């Protein structure tokens, strides 16, 4: 024996070595009384000797235990969905929508109605559900098993063959963790000495006192001198530490923020609520633009209008919209400008609102500003549309900012933020920039994707706000990049409260860390 044994290992191995036939198997249930160890100690000891290759393991049999789920226990009180439906139909036919209304989750009703229809217990005639028979035998059995298993665990294998069959069909339909009954598999195992280990009873001798944990007293008295430390099973499973995590999406945003700060951008922040003036008018979006329709923006009930409009360059913006000469030659939108509409308060619909505010506050030249702003979209919420989302965007004020420096900046952003080298510029249209460009990037795994939009702010935007130098404006959709990084296919999961989904995101982030190599140095 190269390394001395731990006392628990000695206790566990003793029953094997003291038997007449040291090669025979012992079950874990036998080992408890024979070794005098507690069940937890037996488990720990088995792990230790297994990891050292001292014993072999054999799977004897498995049995499946039936236990009611939380839903199952609730169903015992309230009745199974199928029962509730059949009871509701006892008095006569009822519309399907009525039946769905009986359950907080309409999908429960749909599933149960489907099952009843398949079993011939229910018919649908002209939108009405009609009782066509008794409760299916499957439902009755399920109820019986639910009752039995609520009292004491039921072993699946001890049930008659037909019942086993019915139950496993039910489980296949419902999925593993869902439904009313949960099936847990329990394994029974036996162990014997591994012939290769060549253990002999003499290995059980303690061979003198071995040193256990290092203690302050031990160090004080130097009692460790000349002794041998008992080796610990270094490979055995360790308890996981309790750890906290920063949100992976927020961490992704921090990474983007870090890139932008390093590129010389200063961050802008602002209120979640903006007047249309800063969100739209100052950006030269015509007051009749479809994006200003009430089906596209969230308006605030109270207060409805901003009260600080006297501080805004309203007159200059109005003149520009109406095309009244000053402050620059523009044809304008050839329609009246309504200052009341400009005061209307809405949930910020684009981060560009922060840029227009910044432009009006005598920004530095040269200057770079960015925002990672929460924005709001009036849309049916689904896997690709979130009610609020983050937008990254920025502006660059520079005496000689131009279209080619805009293209250069976009290439830089694509490389720094998205880690892509291959980009393509497509002509685009935005009311507030001219020329406008869409940045498409070739992602190694997603293929070509639109990364963002950009352009030079129109003079109709900059001049009324008092800016005389050209201004580059850019915006990036960062949701999609984040979803890819975090292994998500549903945008709503970025803001999930489900801790298991969050754990999945954390794992995906950890995996993607291993796969992403930092981009190479930029060419000079």
């Amino acid at each position, binding site marked *: 024996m190269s390394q001395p044994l731990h006392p628990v290992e000695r206790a566990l191995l003793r029953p094997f070595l003291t038997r007449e036939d040291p090669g025979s198997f012992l079950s874990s249930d036998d080992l408890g009384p024979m070794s005098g160890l507690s069940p937890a100690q037996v488990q720990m000891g088995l792990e230790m000797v297994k990891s050292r290759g001292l014993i072999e393991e054999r799977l004897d049999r498995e049995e499946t235990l039936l236990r009611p789920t939380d839903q199952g226990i609730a169903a015992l009180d309230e009745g199974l969905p199928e029962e509730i439906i059949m009871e509701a139909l006892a008095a006569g036919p009822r519309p399907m929508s009525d039946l769905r209304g009986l359950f907080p989750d309409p999908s429960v009703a749909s599933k149960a109605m489907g099952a009843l229809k398949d079993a011939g217990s229910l018919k649908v005639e002209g939108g009405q559900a009609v009782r066509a028979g008794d409760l299916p035998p499957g439902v009755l059995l399920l109820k019986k098993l639910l009752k039995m298993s609520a009292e004491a665990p039921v072993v699946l294998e001890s049930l008659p063959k037909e019942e086993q069959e019915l139950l496993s069909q039910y489980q296949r339909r419902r999925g593993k963790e869902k439904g009313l009954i949960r099936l847990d598999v329990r394994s029974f195992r036996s162990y014997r000495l591994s012939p290769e280990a060549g253990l002999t009873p003499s290995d059980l001798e303690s061979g003198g006192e071995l040193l256990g944990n290092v203690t302050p007293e031990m160090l004080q008295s130097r009692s460790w001198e000349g002794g041998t430390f008992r080796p610990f099973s270094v490979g055995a499973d360790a308890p996981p530490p*309790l750890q*906290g995590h*920063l*949100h992976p*999406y*927020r961490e992704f945003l921090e990474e983007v*923020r870090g890139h*932008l700060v390093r590129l*010389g951008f*200063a961050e802008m*922040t*602002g209120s*979640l*609520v903006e*007047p249309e003036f800063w969100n739209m008018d100052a950006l030269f979006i015509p007051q*009749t633009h*479809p994006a200003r329709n009430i089906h596209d923006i969230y308006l605030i009930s*109270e*207060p409805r209008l*901003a009260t600080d409009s006297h501080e805004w360059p309203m007159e200059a913006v109005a003149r520009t919209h109406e095309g009244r000469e000053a402050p*620059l030659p523009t044809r304008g939108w*050839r329609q009246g400008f309504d200052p009341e509409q400009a005061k209307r308060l809405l*949930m910020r619909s684009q981060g560009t609102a*922060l840029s227009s*505010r910044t432009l009006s*506050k005598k920004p530095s030249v040269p200057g770079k*500003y960015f925002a990672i702003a*929460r924005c*709001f979209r009036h*849309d049916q919420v689904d896997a690709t549309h*979130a*009610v*609020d989302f983050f937008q990254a965007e920025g502006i660059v004020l*520079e005496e*000689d*900012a*131009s*279209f*080619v*420096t805009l293209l*250069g*900046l976009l*290439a*830089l952003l694509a490389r720094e933020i998205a880690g892509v080298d291959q980009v*393509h*510029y497509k*002509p*685009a*249209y935005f009311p507030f920039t001219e*020329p*406008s*460009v869409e940045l498409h990037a070739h992602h190694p795994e997603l293929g070509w994707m639109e990364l963002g939009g950009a352009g030079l702010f*129109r*003079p*109709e935007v900059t001049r009324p706000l008092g800016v005389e130098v050209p201004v580059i404006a850019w915006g990036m959709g960062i949701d999609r990049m984040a979803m890819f990084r975090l292994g998500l296919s549903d945008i709503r999961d*970025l*803001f999930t*409260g489900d*801790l*298991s989904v969050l754990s999945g995101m954390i794992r995906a982030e950890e995996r993607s860390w291993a796969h992403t190599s930092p981009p190479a140095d930029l060419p000079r």
Partner: protein
Amino acid sequence: MPTLEGHLDDLNSLLPAPLSPEDMNQVLDRVKGEWKHFDPATRRFKIELNDTNRPDLWSVEGIARQLRGGIPLPGRPYSFLDRAAKRERGTAPDISVDPGLSRVRPFLGGFRATGGTLGEEGLAGLIGTQERLSELFGRKRADLAIGVYPLKGRKEISFPLSFRLLDPDTTRFVPLGEDAPRSLREVVATHPKGIAYGPLISSHSSWPVLADAQGEILSLPPVINSQTSGAVVPDDRDLFVEATGNDPQRILLALNILAANLSDRGFHVEPLLSKGEGWDLLAPASPGLSVFVPAGLPARVLGAKTDPLDFIEVLLGFGYPAISRKGEGASEAGFEVLQPFYRDDLLGAVDVVEDYLVARGFASFAPVMPRAFTAGSPAPKIKVENRIRTAFLAMGFTELLSNILTGEPAVTTRLGRSGDFLVRIDNPASLHYAVVRPTLLSGLLAAESRSARHPYPHRLFEVGEAMELSPLPSGDRGLKDLHLAAALVSHPQAGISELQGVLEALLARFDQRLVLEPADLPPYIPGRCGVLRGPRGERIAAVGEIHPATLDLWGIRMPTAAFEIDVGALLAEEGHGDSPHSGGDP
């Protein structure tokens, strides 16, 4: 953004050399379009059009015209422009418009197109173009509506026409696709188009009707045509097209686009003159508008040298009919650029310069890296957030991010709090997102209620923005941005003292001390809640054990404690407090 459907062979029939599907994505850059879908079996395609300001591109004909560089097809010149230029404005109008219409539907213009054939593809295209122009450019017909009629349909249309106001109850006609006459009011009340567009006119006492020289009612603009001339069919060789609305320039543009499209399909277009009180409109016609582009602008916008001759040549190839150089050498030197008659999107000189860049192709420009040095920095607010986040992380907490819009019950009844100071959305898309969150607690509790299967203990936090209403000196209520942090622990021994310790440690990170006074504040258990107050007695933080009744509402079956702190108030952050709107601070 408009989506255009069409047939590749039809598109190719309007081009000098056919394009293959593989060419399309690159070629469509010139029209700001994206090749979205192509079915090789039917050869039908879908193109997404991104330029919402160029309705001339919202048709197969328009895309083909731009790709041809604005040049008419051989044998199909835009000679109607010359005919319009020659037409004497003083002559009797082809369409007279009643003065009373100025309050209802002020302007109408139209033209005849004869001697061509649409075919199935052309007719489908014409109807699609008409729809897109009326719906998108005409804002659901409020600003512009278009009618197309067979000139010699069930009954030949006789000129001159009159656009006038008639009584909605005594005036009767047969709406398109029906067989019995009904009053205007009945049509608006029952016909699908009447229900959709009737509200544009129904508040008036008399309604707009277009009638021909025989007094036959042709249509009830902007609602529906009559059955008099009937529907346009693929074999029709002669058409009458009209547009009504509030803005003569918009009407002229729409008619110019449709005339160009029909001319491209081989129709002979004949402009018509309409007159009302104090105005006349001849359409189609070139408005002759030009834009002055200062000589230095193209190079300044591009950021590289440009050649004046190249500028002219490239734009002529992009559909601009004429460009002249002005004041060479002088400070006000530049180019006078005539706008194509089918476009009206040039607001200023930069629009012309963009076309120049698009025509040259963005791929032909070498990107230049920005050179100016600027110092970057995160916002002060973010620095605070990150200090809080790392403090929580060190204490073993996991961060959550929740939606800022939420349902009202989540932040009122389910917390035992009132909704008196809620910021509400006037037009919510869903009741689940109808108010701006005033607290982060509901997000943490919602997470807890979904996570009973996740191994305990749960230690969660969130930092972020929220809003509430605050009383103003004027007596009104203003918006107040909140900057909050909240934490929650849930496990069998969860209690107030654990979180009090966390809150104390968090405050210490900002060199602040925690002095708690007992308070009775839902959703906490009375007697197990403490608050931290600011110098003016305002509540800065509250910590406590969540009341079992609240836990029950959220379906949480585990002892839970929480705290929330108003970080903005604690640190007296800039932009915090009653000034409702604070922007970026340059």
